[in-house]
């Protein structure tokens, strides 16, 4: 391993990927990255998945990272190849998804001259990466690659970018992969201060109405078992954000589901009435808090995160806890048990209150004869998945369908719900599903999508078909940009401006067939079960076009800027499901 080998910079990139344990990379070749693709042709153990658009490659790398817990890798050429990656990089930044993006750059001698396909991609991405490198000396390449993976996966995870000049890829040098990184300024916390743990434990034991507010950081930290240990040992109720879904089983009785704009009334009320909010790997996003001054007004806050900058950013934390969640949560669970030994906290009345609210305010929607409701399709998918004897991973786009998936899907496994939370990237679902399938070929991977979202990245059906990464895309086709339509109906006097897409164009089943995939069209509730079963067992990528009610709105809803307790509920009359 430590033997020096004479090789080209392009080969060194692949040897670095191999050293880092990368088994799949996603990308598209082009002029400035040609030498690296030539190195791929010369041989590597890294499987390259050829996408149809660099944004797709980026989301595939994200889906791969989210499903596997490993660093995702995306490769693109300079100029437009690199700018097409920007949306995926921004998405990974907002959701703390570990990503190494490798872009080709024009030759060193041309940098700064506005050469063909030259953009300053390190400059363009500066606000949305943890760090980036422009490599103009081949001798630096091994250290940069080592550092890139280290930075992407340590501390709060996220994207990094390595921009490699074409002549660097072509240069010959003596390659040796470094054992250590040399980053004097990169010192993410590796332990939690015991005093912070003690203070947090005491607050938990003293609280009457505590609530855990768990987010995606728990999944990133691989701390789900430790969270569960805390929940179970101290009998602590929890709400779990969209990004955290799956970090505590949805079917766990102490999991009160998702809070926020389209979360349940009981989860929002739980936070509002709590006297202690224990934020774990969550960041008080505005889609969760609503009006911040009215969020959990009577609560003391413990904020536990790997990123010190999140603590106190939005909401003051009386008890800040900074460090890695996995060891910190285990210590906290042990400390709570120790402190509580001489009189376990009794949250009985509080838990009964939460259960009452849960019973009183379930997610619900009105069924109507002859109208296929999108929620019904999500429930049918949930039931179909429950009947399978293997894992199912769900991905989504962004909008109403995403919120219904959050509300109705039951996810009991970590990393089984993959979605674009922070950036809200329409088109994320299909490529993320393909990436997840590459990471977990044993699982059935299903993208619950909207018709607006699907049309943003549907060319990746070709990738799924030809790379033999079969996924199921279920398009909740209401013929509209549904969430925008909902806002126009509710807040813009029903002026439906530029949101009508139509049910019929394109014909999604025909589109699927054109890409060598199986296509199904569902026009009524009684066709749902068979179409889903056929898609799940198609043995190839399948698209299910579920033509559903264009007027259905997503409830409950906390209007933007309103207090999270002021939930607008579904106006349910008649039949209640």
């Amino acid at each position, binding site marked *: 391993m430590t033997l020096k080998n004479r090789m080209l910079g392009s080969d060194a990139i692949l040897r670095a990927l191999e050293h880092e344990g990368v088994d799949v990379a996603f990308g598209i070749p082009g002029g400035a990255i040609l030498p690296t693709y030539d190195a791929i042709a010369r041989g590597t153990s890294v499987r390259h998945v050829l996408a149809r658009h660099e944004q797709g490659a980026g989301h595939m790398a994200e889906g791969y990272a989210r499903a596997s817990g490993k660093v995702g890798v995306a490769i693109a050429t300079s100029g437009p190849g690199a700018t097409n990656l920007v949306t995926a990089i921004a998405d990974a930044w907002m959701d703390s998804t570990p990503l190494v993006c490798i872009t080709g750059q024009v030759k060193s001698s041309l940098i700064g001259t506005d050469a063909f396909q030259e953009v300053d991609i390190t400059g363009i991405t*500066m606000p949305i990466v943890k760090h980036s490198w422009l490599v103009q000396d081949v001798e630096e390449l091994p250290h940069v690659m080592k550092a890139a993976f280290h*930075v992407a996966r340590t501390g709060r995870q996220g994207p990094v970018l390595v921009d490699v000049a074409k002549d660097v890829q072509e240069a010959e040098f003596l390659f040796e992969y470094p054992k250590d990184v040399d980053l004097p*300024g*990169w010192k993410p916390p590796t332990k939690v201060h015991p005093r912070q743990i003690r203070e947090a434990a005491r607050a938990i034991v003293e609280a009457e109405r505590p609530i855990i507010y768990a987010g995606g950081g728990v999944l990133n930290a691989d701390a789900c078992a430790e969270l569960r240990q805390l929940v179970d040992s101290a009998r602590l109720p929890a709400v779990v954000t969209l990004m955290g879904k799956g970090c505590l089983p949805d079917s766990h009785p102490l999991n009160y589901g998702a809070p926020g704009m389209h979360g349940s009334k009981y989860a929002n009320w739980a936070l509002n009435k709590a006297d202690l909010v224990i934020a774990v790997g969550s960041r008080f996003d505005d889609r969760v808090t609503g009006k911040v001054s009215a969020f959990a007004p009577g609560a003391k806050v413990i904020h536990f995160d790997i990123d010190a900058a999140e603590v*106190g950013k939005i909401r003051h934390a009386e008890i800040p806890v900074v460090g890695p969640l996995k060891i910190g949560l285990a210590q906290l669970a042990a400390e709570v048990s120790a402190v509580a030994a001489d009189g376990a906290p009794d949250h009985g009345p509080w838990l009964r209150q939460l259960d009452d609210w849960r019973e009183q305010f379930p997610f619900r929607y009105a069924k109507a004869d002859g109208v296929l409701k999108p929620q019904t399709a999500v429930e049918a998918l949930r039931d179909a998945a429950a009947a399978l004897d293997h894992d199912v991973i769900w991905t989504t786009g962004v909008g109403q369908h995403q919120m219904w998936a959050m509300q109705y899907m039951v996810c009991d496994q970590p990393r089984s719900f993959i979605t674009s939370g922070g950036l809200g990237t329409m088109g994320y679902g299909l490529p993320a599903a393909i990436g997840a399938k590459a990471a977990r070929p044993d699982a059935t991977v299903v993208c619950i999508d909207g018709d607006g979202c699907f049309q943003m990245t549907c060319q990746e059906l070709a990738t799924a078909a030809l790379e033999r990464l079969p996924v199921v895309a279920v398009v909740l086709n209401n013929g509209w940009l549904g969430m925008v339509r909902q806002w126009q109906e509710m807040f813009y006097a029903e002026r439906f401006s530029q949101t009508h897409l139509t049910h019929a164009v394109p014909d999604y089943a025909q589109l699927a067939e054109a890409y060598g995939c199986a296509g199904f069209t569902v026009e009524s509730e009684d066709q749902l079960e068979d179409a889903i079963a056929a898609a799940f067992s198609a043995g190839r990528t399948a698209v299910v076009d579920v033509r559903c009610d264009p007027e259905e709105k997503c409830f409950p809803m906390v209007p933007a800027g309103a207090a999270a307790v002021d939930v607008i509920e579904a106006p349910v009359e008649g039949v209640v499901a």
Partner: protein
Amino acid sequence: MSTHTISVRLENKPGALARVSQLFSRRGYNIESLAVGPTEDSDVSRLTLRVDCSEHSLEQIEKQMHKLVNVLRVTELPADEAVERELALVTVSVPPDKRADLVALSQVAGASVADIARDAITFEIVGRPEQLEAFEELVRPYGVRELVRTGRIGLRRPSRNERT
């Protein structure tokens, strides 16, 4: 809101300064002045930043800067615990008959002559920022033709270095 001086030890790497200034604009913090230059270690630069912000924002700025890979250390320099200096160059219009008066005045104020022409003098003055401001006021009646300030630089007083 109040004005704070932040001292940053930064790896001397391409783009490092851009990353810091980008962070300020991105998060909506206003930089009053920024001075950057080499230190005792050739691999390290030191930035001295003046920002007008709340205590809460200051805490956020420090934490966000700490996350930058090239940033080695971030410290606030409280006014009473730091030595702070700034350099200004001021070109003042002056007719030959008033030249002697102006030069004498400037010497009292701690400035020195850097260049002299038929109808103008360029002064240099190094001092605490308020000294520079006082000098500017002093020569303003003569007509300030051009003025440039470096922005302040600062170091914690060694006698206070135990506290960080």
